[in-house]
């Protein structure tokens, strides 16, 4: 059997494309969690981003407005979460769940008029170079700007957390809000900012799904990707570079599904669809078994409210 080398390149590229929303959402959530906040509303923020992006694109016709509008929608919806958990000191888990339920409902409500409308073509970069290098060309060239941004993001996030002063402040707030506060850092402000940033990235992840990957609006189209993104953050032990690896594995599982069906492997389609979820569980078990290692890498104040009496 002769395997066309460019075909292999195309498969890898499609795996990368399906990893993009996971990378974006996970990197956003990672910053939020590093500041000590557990936002379980990723799925809700993504779906809000998805409908906002698609609706704005259809109504205004501008892709730039649509992409930034989706990010803004993510910011707005995460503001509710930030206000509740930081100002009103509510439980992170319950508030995140409310955000997801609310997000799925309101996106379907807005999206009612956008079902069945075809998407627009999203411009790709370096299209002219597509046939230059065998194997590598389809991987490197001819993708949307969001695609390139997603693959740069883990490295940017890593640099931000390790090498910049603001990154250090975020980590300090997550690991010890009390001492950060004693140093004169406004813990609440930092956490607000990190939650809003997470919202923007989840919004972008959703917009990528509805505007570039699919591209159309389908109800509930995130289909659990938000939850997988949350699992990826644990998988990465809060290290952005490992998110890249994890997202590629899950992207791979999604793509394998299509190809196995195409070559006619006799496995029920439902089993293949369930694979990413089952693998997530297995991976979580393997990662968490070493409780000491998990404790060392988890932001110490994750999910705990911080309230300064004044």
């Amino acid at each position, binding site marked *: 059997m002769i395997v066309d080398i460019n075909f292999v390149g195309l498969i890898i590229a499609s795996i990368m494309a399906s990893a993009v929303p996971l990378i974006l959402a996970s990197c956003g959530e990672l910053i939020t969690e590093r500041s000590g906040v557990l936002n*379980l509303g990723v799925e809700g923020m993504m779906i809000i981003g998805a409908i906002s992006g698609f609706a704005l694109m259809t109504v205004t016709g501008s892709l730039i407005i649509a992409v930034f509008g989706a990010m803004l929608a993510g910011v707005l919806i995460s503001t*509710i979460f930030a206000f*509740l958990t930081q100002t*009103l*000191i*509510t*439980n992170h*888990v*319950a*508030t995140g*769940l*409310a*955000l997801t*339920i*609310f*997000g*799925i*409902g*309101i996106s*379907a*409500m807005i999206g*009612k008029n956008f079902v069945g409308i075809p998407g627009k073509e999203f411009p790709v970069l370096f299209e002219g170079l597509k046939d230059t290098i065998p194997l590598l060309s389809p991987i490197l060239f001819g993708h949307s700007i969001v695609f390139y941004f997603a693959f740069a993001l883990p490295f940017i996030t890593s640099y931000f957390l390790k090498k910049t002063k603001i990154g250090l402040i975020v980590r300090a707030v997550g690991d010890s809000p009390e001492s950060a506060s004693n140093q004169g850092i406004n813990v609440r402000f930092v956490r607000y900012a990190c939650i809003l940033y997470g919202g923007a990235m989840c919004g972008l992840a959703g917009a990528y799904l509805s505007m570039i990957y699919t591209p159309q609006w389908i109800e509930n189209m995130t289909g*659990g990707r938000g*939850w997988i993104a*949350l*699992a990826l953050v*644990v998988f990465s032990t809060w290290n952005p570079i490992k998110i890249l690896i994890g997202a590629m594995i899950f992207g791979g599982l999604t793509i394998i599904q299509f190809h196995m069906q195409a070559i006619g492997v006799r496995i*029920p389609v*439902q*089993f293949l*669809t*369930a694979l990413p*979820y*089952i693998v*997530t*569980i297995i991976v*979580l*078990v393997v990662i*968490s*078994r070493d*409780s000491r290692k*998990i404790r060392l890498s988890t932001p110490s104040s994750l999910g705990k409210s911080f309230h300064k*009496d004044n």
Partner: protein
Amino acid sequence: MIKIVKRDQPSKAIFFFTPVLAIFLTLIAGGIIFYILGFKPFEALKFFFIVPIADKYGFSELLLKATPLCLIAIGLSFCFKSNNWNIGAEGQLTFGAIVSGGVALLFYDQEGFYILPIVILAGAIGGMIYASIPAILKTYFNTNEILVSLMLVYVSKLILDYLVVGPWSNPEGFNFPETRQFSDSARLPLLFEGLRIHAGIFLALAAVVISWFVFYKTYLGFQMKVSGFSLKTAKYAGYKGKKMIILVFLISGACAGLAGVGEITGPIGQLHREVSPDYGFTAIIVAFLGRLHPVGIIFASLVVAITYLGAETAQIFMQIPKYTGQVFQGMILFFLLASDYLLFFKFKFIGSKK
């Protein structure tokens, strides 16, 4: 001037008042959303919350929807009280429905008084098996129960889909994704002629009574309460933490499984793709709105059940999208959590002194 002061002790009166406040605020916010969408707010709210339960049939439908919500929420309150975040009740419901449905299908051409009890038991066991997965992984492998229980929801729905399309599909069913009809002996009896409300409501009421007894009259209930406040204290007191985690998961799994049985042997009468309109997720809101208190949960399940009916009625009469139900559910939880602020803080009015 208004100043915010921390209360010395959380107020007990406000603890049970805030759910009412949350519902009230949700109605106001709902009216505003309807207005933005171009509907008359009061008319829309009337179609949403009053019209659906105005007659005998509507009231029966309300109880029909409240039954699974109440049952699941009672189970979840065991988990939430002891600080275990089981959010996969939807999966436990589905798996309970699969196991009990499978047993009911074994008896599809038989009649007998013994069939229904076996089917019900099978559902409870199915739910327990499914809930034991996150419980065991949490206790022995330190794995986050939130993510595991949630991932299992997707898996259970895919298993159900596989079964009703494939091996369990009705041989005379023209390839519709559904199983055979269960025999009459495997169906929960209807309570009134012409109404859909069925005997499953007694399962929910039994769960309410038993949970009240366990919470407030037994040592286990006390242990759960202490572990909910502080795991460290529980450890000092020498409670068997692992056993308790598994136990509360099994209880909530059994309740969710029973809710699944109630659906398939009650109104549905067979297995098909959608055995539950997300009752398992909505029940999380019911549990919180009911303050994890058995009696509170009864009221909360009735209130939240209206959002299901209201969404259907509003869709038929006013073409309001049916997802409004979920929007309302999310808002109730938002407002409830927000009004919890009043538990710990109070506003003090101070005359400006100059």
